[in-house]
């Protein structure tokens, strides 16, 4: 796409979309959002990138191939699901760690559930981009 305006806008928007997608991912457990929404939003950013600057640039920016990201995400989600099993709990059982918990607040929550959601994010993100990039390159 040779629109200079679009390319100029893309620069800002891609960062914003990525940022926003991570925001949606991390808040997902308590507010609307989560891995799906985050992953789709993040993917949207790179879709825009690909539309504005071509898939070659977008792939370079991504460093890893989207397929690898998606599969890696699946692996992370699987690991998050199996981890509690290793700890003697049920699979998919959420294990929680509250960093810096004090009387008033629970601190920063880290959990297998969050890892799982990150896996979801990566899968949706990588999967969507796998598809869009391949389609863009094919047509």
């Amino acid at each position, binding site marked *: 796409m040779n629109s200079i305006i679009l390319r100029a806008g893309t620069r800002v928007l891609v960062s914003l979309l990525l940022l926003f997608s991570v925001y949606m991912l991390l808040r997902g457990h308590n*507010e*609307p959002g989560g891995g*799906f929404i985050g992953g789709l939003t993040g993917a949207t950013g790179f879709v825009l990138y690909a539309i504005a600057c071509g898939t070659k640039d977008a792939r370079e920016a991504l460093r890893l191939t989207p397929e690898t990201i998606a599969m890696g995400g699946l692996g992370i989600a699987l690991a998050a699901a199996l981890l509690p099993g290793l700890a003697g709990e049920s699979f998919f059982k959420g294990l929680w760690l509250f960093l810096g918990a004090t009387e008033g607040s629970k601190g920063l929550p880290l959990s297998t559930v969050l890892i799982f959601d990150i896996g979801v994010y990566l899968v949706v993100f990588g*999967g969507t981009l796998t*598809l869009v990039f391949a*389609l863009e390159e*094919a047509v």
Partner: protein
Amino acid sequence: MESLLAIVVGILAASAVYLMMARSMMRFLFGLMLLSNAANLSIFVAGRLTEGAAPLIEDGAEAPAGAVANALPQALVLTAIVIGFGLFAFALVLVWRAWTTLGTLEADDMRIAEPKDPA
């Protein structure tokens, strides 16, 4: 609204079915979109409708203050939407590939695997 949505689901399904039986596979795809939409709405409405209140728990509360929308069908619909997206994307690419490979989008012309005159 539940009754009305049941009717809407029916109309969506009818439109979808009509589209799916069209000659062009593109219209089949559109029908597929509508049909997924109908299915999602039917799950949503089957969980009954509660106006407004999203199934969120306020800060500081242990549970939702009042009646909130049924969360389970929402989760199911969300899952179904994403699955439907994956399936639709594949179907779309398949139809595209059918066009480049078979040179047609017409369902009636797709007779390679099952030729008209079996040997």
